[in-house]
């Protein structure tokens, strides 16, 4: 696989192609006026959770739709190392026949796949962790439909028609209808967009479990969710992949070597002492009486700051890295790309 060029922070790791679930080479879909995708080289490893992040209009939905076979690329190539019939997609605003119940939608999903020759509903002897269940209720029993509905938290709504479902319930049902096919590649477009915080937590716990046995690609605006569950991340902006690689690498790349230190005792004295140290490039006392310390490098700061605190003789309450979040890295990366104008790759 070749990395995207054009001066981006795109990371490329040489991988055995058998370890890859999806790769794209120079994928282009031009909607005109700069919209679309412009040379995407995506690399998604098998059994990993890949988070696709980017601002509105970045091309996330277009990319996922092309991977799912719902749209065509104008140029470029897709290597899908899973059978096409083992790919399932959940759109961001799922819709179902409003006159079918939730259980019927799941059965319909299985029936369509079976009629389509995929025989996905049989699933062989594999029992992925994501499909495990416990308990003895009707929904948790041998019925695979009830089981998958229970798994996404819709057991009580199994016999309700979907016409009255909220968007969040439809998103859960969409996931159930996809999971019942036991897909090898699960594509989720903004899966948590309409879920409440508890629902989001459950969803991403489920996604994390799924990665044991299948590949998950999902897009999200909620970067904390991506950081929580994605092992790899792709940053898409204006149809270009600005970064691709391990989530932690992205965070570390844009991590300021700064810490927020809260001490018991006189913070003013600590600030004065830190200012005299050569490795400290900046220090300030914040309104909440915590101290923000910036070092010349992360490595030096990690070693020298604890020593300095000990030397100052203050009681340490807490010490946290500043902006150690995907959101900060994302903002820094996309802001840099905006500054580069059209040169990004």
């Amino acid at each position, binding site marked *: 696989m070749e990395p995207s060029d054009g001066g981006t922070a795109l990371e490329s790791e040489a991988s055995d192609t058998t370890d890859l679930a999806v790769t794209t080479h120079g994928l282009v879909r031009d909607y005109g006026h700069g919209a679309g995708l412009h040379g995407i080289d995506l690399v998604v490893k098998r059994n990993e959770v890949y988070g696709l992040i980017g601002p509105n209009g970045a091309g996330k939905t277009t990319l996922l739709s092309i991977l799912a076979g719902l749209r065509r690329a104008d140029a470029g190539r897709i290597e899908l190392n899973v059978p096409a019939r083992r790919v399932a997609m959940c759109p961001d605003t799922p*819709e179902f026949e409003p*006159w079918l119940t939730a259980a019927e939608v799941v059965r319909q999903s299985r029936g369509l796949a079976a009629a389509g020759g995929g025989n996905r509903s049989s699933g062989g002897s594999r029992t992925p962790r994501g499909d495990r269940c416990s308990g003895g209720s009707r929904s948790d029993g041998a019925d695979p439909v009830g089981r998958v509905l229970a798994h996404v938290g819709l057991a009580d709504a199994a016999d309700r028609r979907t016409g009255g479902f909220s968007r969040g319930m439809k998103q859960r049902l969409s996931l159930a*209808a996809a999971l019942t096919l036991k897909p090898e590649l699960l594509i989720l477009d903004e899966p948590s967009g309409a879920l409440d915080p508890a629902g989001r937590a459950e969803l991403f716990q489920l996604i994390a479990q799924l990665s044991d046995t299948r590949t998950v690609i999902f897009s999200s605006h909620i970067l904390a969710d991506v950081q929580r569950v994605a092992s790899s991340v792709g940053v898409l902006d204006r149809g270009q992949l600005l970064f691709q690689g391990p989530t932690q690498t992205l965070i570390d790349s844009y991590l300021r070597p700064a810490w927020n230190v809260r001490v018991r005792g006189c913070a003013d004295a600590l600030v004065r002492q830190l200012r005299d140290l050569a490795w400290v490039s900046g220090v300030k006392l914040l309104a909440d009486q915590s101290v923000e310390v910036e070092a010349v490098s992360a490595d030096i700061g990690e070693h020298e700051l604890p020593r300095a605190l000990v030397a100052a003789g203050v009681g340490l309450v807490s010490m946290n890295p500043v902006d150690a979040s995907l959101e900060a890295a994302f903002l820094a990366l996309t802001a840099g790309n905006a500054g580069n104008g059209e040169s990004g790759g």
Partner: protein
Amino acid sequence: MSPWRVEWLRLVRTRRLIALGGVFVFFGFIEPLGTYYLPDLLRHSAGGLKIVIPRPVPADGISSYASNALLIGLIVMVFVAASACMVDARPALSAFYRTRTRDFWQLLYPRAAVAACAGVGAYLLGLLCAWYETGVLIGAPGAAAMAESAVLVSVYLVFAVAVTAAASTLARSTLATAIWSIAFLLVISVAAAVPQLKQWLPAALTDAPDALVRHTAALHYYVPAVAVCAVGMIGLVLAARWRGSSREVS
């Protein structure tokens, strides 16, 4: 759940089956009745004028049913078929279907087939009603002619569903699909007014109930129209399959 069961539920739960059956059964009962009482109705509304109307014959009852059923009933059937065949009306729902099937035909075939069966079934149900009431009020039409006309009209209704299925892969909404389909069927009906074309156009089949029951035409007269219908259906279905498969979900 099989796609066939889903299509059956679509008809039943959306009450489209009731609408479809209701309109044909309504005309099946009302038209022979209207034909039987038409002389009396005109006599009472004529004032001082003397209107001479020949006594109705069994063919009048059946012809009256067929003409209305194949106008209003056909429009209802086209709307029912359009709503079923319009796979891409809602993009998210289209994504649900298309990511689970490898061939668009697997989506279209059950929808069109069930809609056609429902349309033909509703027409035949209405025809039975019209036959019964005509037999009670006016006199029994010939069973052979009735059976022949039923087959020919059924072929025309299946052709109409094939037209609708093809239109559903061109239009972006159910309403547009229905309008395009009705417009196409109207055009071939108008074209059938040309004597040289009439025998060859599917619209000729809509005249079969009147002509066969009155014995003004023989069954073999409709063979060219049936052949054109068959060829047309194959062409329309292939076009729908190709067009539907190459379409993107927007």
